[in-house]
């Protein structure tokens, strides 16, 4: 049937692979060009458009007289949408009495119910967490060089926490980062804060003061991203190994399509071919795996944060409960002991002070036989 003009499928237009779940893979850079072709530069610029110019263009296009235009503007102005008289005081915090809209009926029920409860405490941390999103909105840089250019792509990426316990699966704790299209994958890698990077290996009961010197981030620098059949390895440092080697070799022996390799530092987001809404992988420290989902790709807008230096921008981060010291229940645990005769349970958490007080005498000698490991609490990034 030659009549189908819809058969002209442009690959760069993202479409759903599964409706409302994820899209088919598309090239990010080409997506951007596709949008920029379709729009006039003024549509996505940060400047405010002058109303007179806009009106003049409109009148010319439609061929109407100025009086008609004025009338039109009066009719279509926002004031016509106002439901109250101008001088009536308006309290937007309260549902108006006798609501007819279903939304309001439902909301009123909830409001009435809430009124019957005792005062519920809003956690201060939750309150600030909600504010995190709007923290950087509308920020302009002082130096115009740092301004995010018009027509730049902003990606929203969810990086899920590695260990997701069975019963907390529906919550999906994650952190949301906003990145620019011109950033490379190493920028994303550096922005991901995972506590496994801060882990210190080794048993330090004999030398408790030496603990903070070795953190895993410095030791094990390799990492890779996996997007659409390509492994992007971090090869910046000489000690980085190609961790994807094993997987690729294994896949060759099985019935998998061949995977490819690329360098993380050479790949920008514009060069990627990805699906939106589809889970991918980020692996570091050898076995710490994070699921990465690109939730949104769009053109930059006037109200976004326009300071390049602030990107990658953290917009959301799940708060993790911190585990406190078993003794004082006040400070966050820093040491984990096993085989410890002083401890009530095995293993046991101690904060720095309680640990020293219990296990070492005034001169710093070790008392008793135990094993102590430095502990990094998952809530360290809260």
């Amino acid at each position: 049937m030659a009549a189908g003009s819809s058969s002209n499928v442009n690959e760069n237009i993202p479409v759903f692979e599964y409706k409302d779940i994820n899209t088919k893979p598309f090239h990010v850079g080409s997506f951007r060009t596709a949008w920029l072709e379709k729009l006039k530069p003024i549509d996505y610029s940060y400047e405010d458009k002058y109303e007179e110019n806009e009106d003049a263009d409109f009148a010319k296009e439609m061929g109407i007289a100025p009086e008609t235009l004025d009338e039109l503007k009066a009719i279509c102005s926002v004031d016509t949408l106002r439901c109250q008289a101008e001088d009536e005081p308006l309290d937007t915090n309260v549902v108006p009495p006798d609501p007819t809209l279903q939304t309001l009926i439902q909301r009123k029920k909830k409001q009435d119910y809430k009124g019957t409860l005792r005062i519920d405490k809003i956690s201060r941390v939750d309150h600030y967490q909600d504010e995190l999103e709007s923290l950087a909105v509308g920020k302009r840089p002082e130096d115009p060089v740092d301004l995010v250019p018009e027509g730049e792509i902003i990606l929203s990426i969810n990086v899920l926490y590695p260990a997701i316990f069975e019963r907390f699966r529906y919550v999906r704790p994650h952190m949301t980062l906003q990145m620019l299209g011109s950033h490379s994958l190493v920028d994303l890698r550096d922005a991901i804060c995972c506590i496994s990077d801060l882990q210190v290996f080794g048993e330090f009961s004999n030398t408790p003061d030496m603990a903070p010197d070795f953190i895993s981030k410095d030791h094990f620098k390799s990492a890779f991203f996996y997007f659409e059949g390509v492994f992007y390895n971090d090869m910046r440092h000489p000690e980085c190994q190609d961790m994807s080697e094993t997987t690729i070799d294994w896949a060759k022996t099985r019935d998998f399509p061949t995977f490819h390799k690329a360098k993380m530092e050479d790949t920008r987001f514009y060069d990627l071919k990805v699906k939106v809404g589809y889970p991918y992988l980020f692996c570091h420290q050898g076995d710490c795996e994070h699921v990465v989902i690109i939730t949104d790709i769009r053109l930059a807008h006037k109200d976004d944060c326009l300071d390049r230096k602030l990107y990658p921008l953290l917009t959301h981060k799940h708060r993790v409960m911190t585990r406190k010291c078993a003794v004082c229940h006040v400070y966050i645990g820093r040491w984990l002991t096993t085989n410890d005769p002083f401890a009530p349970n095995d293993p046991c958490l101690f904060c720095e002070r309680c640990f020293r007080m219990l296990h070492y005498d005034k001169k710093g000698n070790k008392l008793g036989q135990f094993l102590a490991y430095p502990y990094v609490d998952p809530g360290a990034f809260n």
Partner: protein
Amino acid sequence: MPNGKAKDRFLKPLVADYEELLGRFQQTESVRFEEFTAIWRNMGFSSVFYGSLAGNEMREFCHLTLTMAFNYFLPPYSFQIRVGGLYLLYGLYHTQLASPKEKIRIALKDWEQIQKFYQDSVNSQHYDAVYIIRKLIAENAVLYTAMPQMLTFRVKKKPQHHKVCEEFRDRPERVKDLISTDMLQEVANIQGHHERLKASVLERSSIAVTQQDLPARLHSCVLEFLHWQDRHENHGDADHLVYAEEKAQQVESSNRAQLLASIKTKSYGCLAEASRSRRHRQVEMDTSISGTGYIKQAPKYHKSRAPSLKARTNKNLCGEGQSPGFRCKVNNSLFDFEAVDPYNDTVRAVVELIRVVHNVNEWHGTQLLLPEQKEGSCVVR
């Protein structure tokens, strides 16, 4: 990230409110913004944002309202509903209480549809719709995105598909899509080409494998169907039938906007744009009646009460894929195509088409059985 449960809670009453608003708008049979704002004020729609919504809930709610409203701006809704959707977006964007304002997300795949809509509005001289689209874009109310919503791979949750409200759906145009003017032209061209080749090869053309008047017959089938659709929707309004006659003369000039505009004027009775040949009889602007000089109020048709969902489903071809009017069996190398609903006029029109097309293939040895008992059915073996 919006809490999934909260979102579902807000969803149903919100959609109910939208459909109430758009239903009333549909009944006014107009696409004017004033009508829309009258209904808006009547329902007090700005108050949909009132009530203390804690923390981020307000922002999420505003985002949700805009996303849901955007669905009404796209096909398969009729033109009037789409204009209503546009006005709804404009209203919601400006009355929302989140600060900075939540934007309207437009995905790349929908841009074509929106451009077509814009072009149709310009051609039909709907100044307010055009002005509002331009204003929204000029005010930076639009985010140009890849996808209409943020996708987080929530596979386990039942995805909330937007259920298309049947009453707002545009008239099914399947027959017209099947036999479009382009296709008719192509068929005519091919036929002409074939005739010429035949004449050049043979002295006397006694063999006729094609119907000589195939394009004309296809065209008349389509027109008949359109007439039937019109009759059925407007109960014999004379203007429409006359209008459809004029349409017949203009098919050669395959102007898609014209076809669309003509169907649209049948769907809503506000602006009757005369076709090119009847431009001299165009209804003039009547500035004396109303203060708004830029629109002309054509006499409003009284649409009867919309038929029930069951009746409509029986009337139209089912939209989900399987058409209830046809049954198709394949036995060995035979192909049984049986129409089981002879009372469905759409089915009848398509059967007629099949008959016409089949005649082309007669010499292949296929048979077309037309059982006398069931009018409007055929079996092709």
